[in-house]
């Protein structure tokens, strides 16, 4: 129904379904009487409509309501038992028994977290390019090495023979 001046397809559907405004229906009929394409679509859509009318559904089973109410009762019973067990769980007696266990679990978790965070402090940090991160022992070692290099330099300088004075040559 894309041809010029042809009504949109929802007009065709509404016309076939019998829910088109009577004035619009008359306009559509007049158009379809002159437009071969719309006339063909109108006939084909009406045929589909009639075919679908032939499909009568099977009757609903006699035990439908009984089965539904059984399911509703079972659902209510399940919800009730869930609420009851929740209520039982929140009573003081339960917490009295569970409290030592909860404290033990909390202690274990706290200990683990402390240990984990201490381990993290000992590991080297991720460094940005161009920077070097050293531990305290590595820094001492480096300082000692630098001192040794300087000492060796001084010794070399002291033991080297004196250069001849160029003016004397």
């Amino acid at each position: 129904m894309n041809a010029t001046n042809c009504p949109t397809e929802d007009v065709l559907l509404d016309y076939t379904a019998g829910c088109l405004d009577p004035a619009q229906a008359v306009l559509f009929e007049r158009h379809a009487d002159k437009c071969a394409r719309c006339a063909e679509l109108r006939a084909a859509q009406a045929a589909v409509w009639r075919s679908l009318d032939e499909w009568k559904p099977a009757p609903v089973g006699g035990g439908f309501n009984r089965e539904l109410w059984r399911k509703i009762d079972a659902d209510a019973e399940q919800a009730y038992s869930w609420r009851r067990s929740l209520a039982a769980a929140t009573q003081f007696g339960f917490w009295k028994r569970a409290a030592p266990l909860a404290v033990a679990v909390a202690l274990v978790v706290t200990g683990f977290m402390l240990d984990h965070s201490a381990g993290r402090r000992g590991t080297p940090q991720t460094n940005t390019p161009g920077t070097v991160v050293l531990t305290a022992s590595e820094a001492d070692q480096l300082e000692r090495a630098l001192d040794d290099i300087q000492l060796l330099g001084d010794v070399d300088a002291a033991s080297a023979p004196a250069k001849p004075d160029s003016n004397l040559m």
Partner: protein
Amino acid sequence: MNVLAWYVLPKLLMSEWVQKDMEAVSALDLDAQLMLRVREGDDDSFRVLLEKHRNPLVHFLQRMVQDAGASEELAQEVFLRIYRSRSSYEPSAKFTTWMFRIASHLALNWLRDERHERAAQRLDGPRLDGARPGEERSDLPAREIRDHNPSVEQRLVYETRLQEIRDSIASLPAKQRAAVLMHKYEEMEYSQIAQALECSESAVKSLLFRAYETLRARLAHLVTGA
């Protein structure tokens, strides 16, 4: 006395906030009013809703999933969900739109989950009408033909036509199928179908145009042969 019995007493018995909600939907939807009573614990109102909508709902699901047993189970699940959510019910949409929204959701899920199993069952399993292959079931539309004493040949032609109609609907993508069934058999408006399928009205029109286009092509030979 009549005025007291029919108007004043129910008003006095109902809580004020239910009255407010009911006044808001009174012009809109009788079903919503019943549902508000269900929210207040009135199971009789639920029974009224069940009696009123059971058949259309089961028939919609029968045509949607094309499995008699599954359609009844799905319909029961729809009513169960409605009953379960009664305490939080708000009449924001038409009751039937809400009901078909739940039904479409369940049916689309069922079709997605059972696609392969269904394909295998259709080859040798029970038919939609509950009868075994090659077996008749007396309480079906076929009875209409039998009442007019159709010949075996006429009956065969009718069964073949019906099967082709079922197949042509089954060949549609699930969402197009749901849209067509709501449009054709439930006479729902585009806006209601859009709400039920959780899409826009223009998307619904597009679904319907494509679906009917397919059906016109698939069922054309039935028309010319009729």
